[in-house]
């Protein structure tokens, strides 16, 4: 095995790992965050950084699995989704 072969495998493995990470963040952001915390890296800020879904766009990958907290407040308040109801 030449040095280039080793380098090649390393680069390919890195690219694949990064891709896996991005896809995981789209489909299972909570799982990814749990993994991060397991390694001792994550913080609450990561949830807040999820892209907003209201930009009128197709940049909505952030909503896939977990509804992002759209208005993170310092109090850590709970966001209640709007329910179907006819108000008086």
């Amino acid at each position, binding site marked *: 095995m030449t040095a*280039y*072969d080793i380098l*090649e*495998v390393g*680069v*390919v493995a890195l*690219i*694949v790992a*990064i*891709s*896996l*990470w*991005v*896809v995981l963040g*789209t*489909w299972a952001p909570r799982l990814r965050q749990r993994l991060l915390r397991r390694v001792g890296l994550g913080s609450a800020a990561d949830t807040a950084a999820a892209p907003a*879904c*209201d*930009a*009128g*766009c*197709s*940049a*909505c*990958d952030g*909503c*896939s*699995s977990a*509804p992002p907290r*759209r*208005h993170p*407040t*310092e*109090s850590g*308040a*709970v*966001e*209640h*989704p*709007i*329910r*179907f*109801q*006819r*108000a*008086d």
Partner: protein
Amino acid sequence: MTAMENVLHIALVGNPNSGKTALFNRLTGSRQKVANYAGVTVERKEGRYTSPTGRSVRVLDLPGTYSLNATSPDEAVTRDVCMGRFEGETRPDLLVCVADATNLRLHLRFVLELQRLGLPMVLALNMCDAAAKRGIRIDVEALQAGLGMPVIETVAIRHRGTSELVRRLDGPLPPPTAMPVAPGADLHAEVSRLLATAVTVPRRTARIDDALDRFFLHPVFGLAILSVLMFFMFQAVFAWAAPLMDGLDAGVSAVGAMLANVVPPGLLHSLLIDGLIAGVGSVVVFLPQILILFLFILFLEESGYLPRAAFLLDRLMVGAGLTGRSFIPLLSSFACAVPGIMAARTIQDPRDRLATILVAPLMTCSARLPVYALLIAAFIPKQQVLGAFNLQGLVLFGLYFSGIVGALVVAWVMKKIRKDQNEHALLLELPSYRMPNPIDIAIGLWERAMIFLRRVGTIILSLTVLLWLMSSFPAPPDGATGAPIDYSFAGIIGHAIQPLFAPLGFGWEICVALVPGMAAREVAVSALATVYALSSTGDDAAGQLLPIIAGQWSLPTALSLLAWYVFAPQCVSTLAVIRRETESWRTVALAAGYLFGLAYLASMLTYQIARLLT
């Protein structure tokens, strides 16, 4: 005193389309979506700025409403925040009422209603420039005295248009008005009294609006203009984009050729050429088409034409069991179904709202455009029809149209099933026309381009890499004949599910592409490119998806895949937002089930009929 107490909480409240979000963007430097129709903002949005004296101000942008008697979920948010009943939200210290200076007769009534809440308030008279242009003269002093609150003129769309407001908010809070209109008293009468003392209006409507509406809302011309506009839009998507796309295509090919020379054959070579260049490159070239589509959408949104289109088509939508209110959510779905489904919050009736949410995914979102454009370019000849229209544009129009017809039929069936006899309200305000600002449009397009490129650079690229991995491993056994991809995971999976799609005429390559296409529709294009690049033995296949599918697929297969994409719920984000908006997995299952069923049926019919005919 803690830092928390130092923060001033203000909320922007007012009638729909009074420019609250434009003001919010100006104050906080954010870039929330603004457009010229009621109901763009459907949830509360938070932003911050620091005042000249260093005070921290937290600004809340609220959905517009005509009254605190909320009739839809978005209006309920505004009511609850103003009354301090919204869970997890402190009651604002100060309400900034935003009123359109050209429409005070309507907007002041809500200001008076809000005054009864007893909160400190200021009134921002927005769009003062437009009012001045129409000759509307407002005596700010008199209005201030009559209302008992500070009145500040603003022009939210102008650079320094809010400096006076910022200065006033920096001072001490104004006291709540001492004399709100008594409960039970007629607010309209009070507004008339105020207008008589403080406002002179030469003419109740803008002359230009009357003139334009005579054409755009004319029973015959109006519909003709609408059809021509839609037609022209899809023609332009193909005609204008062609030179730009050719340029991008050449660029992608050049980069591919360069890389192929630099990187020696092997694993990395395959990843870069067959995976990245072939896959991602095949999606990037559709950027011009997406931008042209959004150029039209932004122009229509800013100009105030959209509610007019809703007015013209309302009767058809009622016939199908939708309301005219569904129009704007459905129209937003042409960009992406996710904001479209969220915009359905402006619909009062829960069942109308549900119907709108369920059919929104049928509107052709911009992520479908690359798939459509690829197949059309490969299979539909570039010829002129009737001298003026190009056939490719016509087919694209037809695909968009099929989605719309599909939505109307589905809504109609739903109406029949639930035997709905209820009345559906329209009550839609038609705003004044506005000339779209070229700079705003340019910024909007830039943002769309960035969104698309970011999407290409993250999710599409990543999925393509993973697909390449799945398609390259395990490597074929020694002495194997045929393409290596046949022995890989992707090849095995593709061959395994192909029988299910055989009646639709899909080959195993298409089946492989459909799976990652669930995460983002465009990935189907990059996945096909990667699969074909790996299937071919030569090196020349990279970046040349179009001639390959044109050569290998039959026309019925191409048409069948187009039909599949009109209906199939190929988008996890859409299903997730349906779940969030309806809080029901049942609705998600219903939506996904009926869409897949419809897609399968439509594809099968298309394939079988096309095969008989060709």
